[in-house]
């Protein structure tokens, strides 16, 4: 019994962190939102080289969770959940290039279908890709699609796990940036981080994230359903985003300020791959029988 990442898993996390911290991911995400996918695709290729696309077929869900936490922490754009978690399991093989999928009703749109080499509905290629619809997260380019294919429960659960890990990473990033900010920003002659209202709000975020993480890792190990991880990671990351915005004041409310990338991403991911209500109902079914 060892419920912490082992040395290899920590090394993998560190190597992704090193890659992403030197990749100007904020600029990549902003270009992606503006329809210039070139920097994003270059980053895609480098992450693929690190094995992120083959995690679902060649590694364990724990490594997958480690990778998606990093993707969330750095706001990496692109249909990663679709290409690295859902499709490899649903299709039975690793995907080539960039692929995306819609799975109505829980995944009504195909993310980044304009950039993808293949667009699926369930396990079949889409017959038609419609228009772009705007997401709260500008880096998520959503497209309506037509077609019919079967959905796969195991693949869905892995996608839910990946989304949960991404939420966790995004929440951690918002908390870290908020802590840095409240230690610098002064009002009434003191750092705002010395005021108890601010401290307690951020402490609650720390606590929520600390207790979401074991559910994400526990779901990766099959100890709890993926839905439990999604509910907890969604709640924790959402609390982080609301609190993060509040402690930043007006600057946090601007699109120009980078925090906005994570605040909007968390809002989108809370309902992506199953809403909280859906996952709670699913858990209830399982528990009550």
């Amino acid at each position: 019994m060892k419920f912490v990442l082992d040395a290899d898993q920590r090394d993998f996390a560190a190597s992704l962190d090193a890659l992403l911290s030197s990749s100007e991911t904020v600029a990549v995400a902003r270009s992606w939102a503006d329809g210039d996918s070139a920097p994003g695709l270059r980053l895609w290729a480098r992450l693929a080289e690190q094995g992120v696309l083959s995690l679902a077929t060649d590694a364990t869900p724990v490594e997958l969770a480690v990778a998606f936490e990093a993707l969330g922490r750095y706001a990496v754009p692109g249909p990663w959940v679709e290409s690295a978690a859902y499709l490899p399991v649903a299709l039975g093989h690793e995907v080539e290039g960039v692929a995306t999928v819609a799975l109505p009703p829980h995944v009504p749109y195909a993310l980044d279908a304009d950039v993808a080499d293949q667009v699926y509905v369930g396990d079949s290629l889409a017959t038609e890709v419609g228009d772009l619809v705007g997401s709260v997260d500008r880096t998520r380019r959503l497209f309506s699609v037509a077609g019919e294919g079967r959905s796969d429960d195991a693949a869905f659960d892995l996608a839910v796990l990946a989304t949960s890990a991404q939420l966790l990473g995004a929440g951690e990033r918002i908390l870290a940036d908020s802590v840095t900010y409240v230690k610098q920003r002064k009002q009434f002659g003191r750092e705002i981080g010395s005021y108890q209202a601010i401290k307690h709000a951020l402490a609650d975020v720390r606590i929520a994230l600390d207790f979401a993480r074991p559910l994400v890792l526990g779901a990766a190990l099959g100890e709890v359903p993926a839905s439990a991880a999604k509910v907890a990671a969604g709640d924790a990351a959402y609390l982080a985003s609301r609190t993060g915005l509040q402690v930043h004041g007006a600057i946090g409310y601007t699109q120009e300020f980078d925090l906005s990338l994570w605040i909007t991403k968390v809002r989108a991911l809370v309902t992506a791959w199953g809403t909280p209500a859906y996952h709670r109902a699913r858990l209830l079914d399982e528990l009550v029988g």
Partner: protein
Amino acid sequence: MDLTLSESELAFQAEARAWLEANVPAEPLPSMDTADGFVAHQEWEKRLSDARWSVVSWPTAYSGREASLVEWVVFEEEYYRAGAPGRVSQNGIFLLAPIVFDHGTQEQQDRFLPTMATGEKIWAQCWSEPEAGSDLASLRSTAQRDDERGGWVLNGQKTWSSRASFAHWGFGLFRSDPQAARHHGLTYFLFPLDADGITVRPIAQLDGEAGFAEVFFEDVFVPDSDVLGAPGDGWRVAMSTAGNERGLSLRSPGRFCAAADRLIDLYRSTPDPAYADGVVDAWTKAQAYRLYTWGTVTRLADGGEMGAAGSVNKVFWSELDIALHETALDLLGPEAEVESRWLDGYTFSLSGPIYAGTNEIQRNIVAERILGLPREVRK
């Protein structure tokens, strides 16, 4: 990363489960905060101890099984899963004993640990004072040196001492050097609650039972042999107890997993979709707490320390406990006000954010020691 138990841990688990299944009282015992209930709980402690299940992590010489941290948590899970009674001995075995092992003399260990393990002597924690709650270091009860008799003379008043209404011994901090700075000059004492000069006045709690008490000290003599750790070093010694209380030992995850399972049963018998989310969240959080604890156990077993993480833990379990019980009362509907095990659990849960350091104080600790935010301005 894995959550599988080893062969020997599984064997330990099976043995504990079998014993508990055969021995846990079919009917819940009366409240340990009543005279009858206290005795019934002491009898249960004796039964546990006779089978060497009362203090599994202790050395065999003191009726333990030298169980590892993993086995201890496994035991706690089994204990609460089996519906076994709350531990009337918990102040002694969970809060005081680790300190006696670390700071006590051999003579103190031999004198105090055996009767703690059997439940013969029940201990009360006498820290809080009427004017010293969250700001514990401002405590005023005094200890004066008595060289002639080789000991100390205690005066003052402690309050909110859980179990003190019926307990036999107390442990507490007293100011032994009035000149020293706040956190210095405190000494950690052990004393029988029936000593000359001690008066215990039970205080009824929200549920009407005397779960805690005030303790008055009037020229109470305590020999040097009942000082725990070095005189003047009481704060440091005591703070290792506080870590235990907030951290692992006081609220093992088994309690919440068992309560969440009972909540699911309650939902099955009185399903009300309006409260379904509360049921799911209680279960999910109990699982989060269980898994988080395994992470803590791994870190501690690898030589890590609990530190401020105990504060993260404390806020979480205390809020989970209230939310879980509120959901149960919601499900009970108009019956919720009628005496029941759920109502007892609910009332008790309300004290969680207050004792063991209030949740406001825990959040300060999380913010300052984990997030690194500036310390509060304090006098």
